[in-house]
């Protein structure tokens, strides 16, 4: 229904597993989580979107904002997404070229 956020550390990265709908209502919660992590010095983020049902431009804005934040600390933000309907949203908006989009956590963590 709503947005769920689960965070854990692995291999020098912080993985945020996002579930539910990232929309105009819930996106601020994701932004706050990213801001909090960056504030704690976690600059290498992996956003796992496998359980995301919905993403609108507000959600995209938060992801782009997050990318800017971690890059300001020479960090990284990788996305995990296999769902065609979400990938289409990244393509349409040109953001498929801006983000490193991986198909699994293993894949995302493998890249150096």
């Amino acid at each position, binding site marked *: 229904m709503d947005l769920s956020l689960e965070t854990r550390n692995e291999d020098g990265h912080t993985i945020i597993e996002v579930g539910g709908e990232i929309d105009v209502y819930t996106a601020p919660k994701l932004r706050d989580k990213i801001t909090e992590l960056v504030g704690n010095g976690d600059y290498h983020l992996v956003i796992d979107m496998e359980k995301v049902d919905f993403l609108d431009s507000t959600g*995209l804005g938060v992801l782009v904002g997050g990318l800017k934040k971690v890059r300001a600390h020479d960090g990284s933000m990788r996305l995990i997404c296999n769902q065609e309907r979400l990938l289409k949203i990244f393509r349409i908006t040109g953001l498929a070229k801006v983000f490193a989009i991986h198909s699994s956590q293993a894949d995302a963590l493998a890249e150096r």
Partner: protein
Amino acid sequence: MPSGAARTATGVTVSIARDPSLVRTVRLVAAAVARRTTGDEDFVEEVRLAVGEACALLVGPDAASAGSAGPVEVSMQVEDRLRVTVRAGGSVAVHDAPTSDIDGIEPWALLRGLMDDFEIERGADGISLSMSWALT
């Protein structure tokens, strides 16, 4: 009888307070209306995304203005095409104008990418977005 009644002699109209948490309810209705026209869930998803996006743009992320700014109204008609109009009005400025750039993404890029043609009408009394889909 409320005023404006003749407006929805056919179809479904949903009005929500300008409250981001209500946008999901509009998506639910949009999906239900789309699903009545087809068994194609990709089509349903496309309508849900576009209507939700249009609604999000007009509601804006600023929950603080909820209630004070008049509703956003979404009307859906199934005729020769599925036609959807999203209207917001009055005193509150649309948060993200079509040319603004927040956090590096152009907020209207998604809606423009989704819809081959959608129409924006701006007037002294508000803004209205119209979109339509062919029915198969």
